[in-house]
Structure formats: C-alpha cells, structure tokens
C-alpha cells in the first residue's frame, strides 16, 4: 500500500540540490500539525486555549509566538482578530485544544493538510523571497516574532520569519507551483 504523500514531496531532490551552496536552504517540512483556532480573544475560552498551548494567543496583529521545544514546540501565528494558526510537530494537539475550548463558542479545525510548510533559509533567503513578496522583509520590520498572510509570487502564503530564514506556509494545491517558482528564482543564488 502506498504511503501518505506531502504536497511538495516531488521537489525534495531539487530542494536539496539548491541547498548545496552557502546561499540558501530550501526544504519542505512535511506533515506538521496545523490547527486553525477561532475564538473571541477576550473570552475565558481564549485564555484556556492559551493554557492548553502553553503560551497565550498573540493579540497583536502580525505577530507570532513560539514556545516549548522538541516535540512540544509550538508556534502560534496571528491570522486575524479572532483567528490563529497553530503549527507544531506531527502528533496532535487537536484534542488538547478542543478540551481548552470546551463547549464554548469558537472553532478548532484541523488544517494540517490544507497547507504545507516550506523552509526558505540561508543568507539569501530574504533576497529570494523579495522576488515575489511585496512586504518589507527587512529584519528591522519583519523579524522573528512577526508573521504575515500575504502573497508570494502568485500564491497566498503565511510567512513566519525565523532567526535564519522563513517558514512559508502555502496551500497544498499551490505547493508545486511555488516550489517551481522558488527554484527558478533561486537560480541566481545557487549557480
């Protein structure tokens, strides 16, 4: 029986080849847990969900928090005034969050397969993304602790800056397009 397959699985080899130099590291981080959380941030339920996550839901627009490490690592990105995306290693927190919400108004939806996560890292990561992202990615403006939903090339993405690069979360159906685009744009930096 065939195994499950991640949206950019076919690009693993080409990502690796493009990562051989010093300039860039490209990779798919497949099968991460992703959970869409909708809740009124001022409600007790939001606090309980934060407790379940181990970190309060960030209420400042365009910010993300990161807590825990290893299997307990979790990143919570602000998507909207009552919407967050929880990104964590594989292995579910879904039930934990559902418990946090209880039967109060809100929603906890498993969207792990809705988007896949691409890592764009290395000294030229910012230059690479600037070919297709209109946001100011300068570290003074968009460094660790920030996040944004925007467009990269012609695909909608969630961008989460890290110390050495960016997580680019892209809808699964656009993953192949974005992978091709990234590899094409990377040609100058890896040749």
């Amino acid at each position, binding site marked *: 029986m065939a195994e499950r397959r991640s949206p950019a699985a076919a690009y693993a080899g080409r990502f690796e080849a493009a990562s051989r130099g010093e300039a860039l590291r490209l990779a798919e981080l497949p099968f991460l847990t992703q959970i869409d959380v909708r809740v009124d941030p001022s409600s007790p339920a939001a606090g309980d969900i934060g407790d379940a996550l181990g970190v309060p839901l960030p209420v400042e*627009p*365009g910010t993300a928090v990161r807590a825990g490490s290893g299997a307990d690592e979790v990143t919570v990105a602000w*998507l*909207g*005034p009552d*919407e967050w995306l929880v990104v964590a290693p594989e292995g579910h927190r879904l039930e934990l969050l559902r418990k946090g919400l209880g039967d109060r108004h809100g929603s906890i939806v498993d969207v792990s397969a809705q988007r896949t996560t691409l890592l764009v890292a290395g000294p030229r990561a910012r230059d690479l993304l600037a070919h297709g992202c*209109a*946001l100011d990615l300068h570290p003074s403006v968009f460094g660790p602790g920030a996040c*944004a*939903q*925007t*467009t990269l090339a012609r695909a*909608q993405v969630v961008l989460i800056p890290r110390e050495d690069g960016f997580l680019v979360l892209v809808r699964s159906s656009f993953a192949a397009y974005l992978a091709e685009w990234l590899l094409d744009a990377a040609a100058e930096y890896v040749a």
Partner: protein
Amino acid sequence: MLLIPCPWCGPREEAEFHYGGQAHVAYPEDPAALSDEEWARYLFFRDNPKGVFAERWSHSAGCRRWFNALRDTATNQIHGVYRVGEPRPVAS
C-alpha cells in the same frame, strides 16, 4: 499600486484586497415589506461621487476582514479606514 491600510494588518498592496462597493448600504430589515421600486433601489442604485467615497474592502489575501475606507475617487487618496460597526469618521 495603491497601499491600502488594513485596520488590522497595516498598509498592504492593493492586490491583496477585494473591492466591495459602496459602504453603509444595509440589507433591508424586512425585504418583503418593500415595494419593487424600493427593493430595486437597494439592489441596483449606488452613489458614484467624484471625491470622498465610503466603500467596503476585504483584506482577502490577509486577515480576511471586511472594513470600510474613505477613498477620494479623483486622487485615490485614502483618508481613513475603519472597522465594520465603527461610525464613519469625518473626512479631513
């Protein structure tokens, strides 16, 4: 490319937004009570000013929030944005 200040996300490129037409055209309380003409007025009639216009935008590639903007249709200058439910500010 306009820079539209989303009330949540801050200034973003126009291409991230969807236009929603004139703001403050409320869905009638009881459509069945309206005459054909009144209903047609709701359906089909919109202002088209040269100057400041209150209009709806959705930050569809971002936070997916609908909001209102006061845009000068002659200069494209956006005089202000405000969240749904907030009163229309006085244009400067």
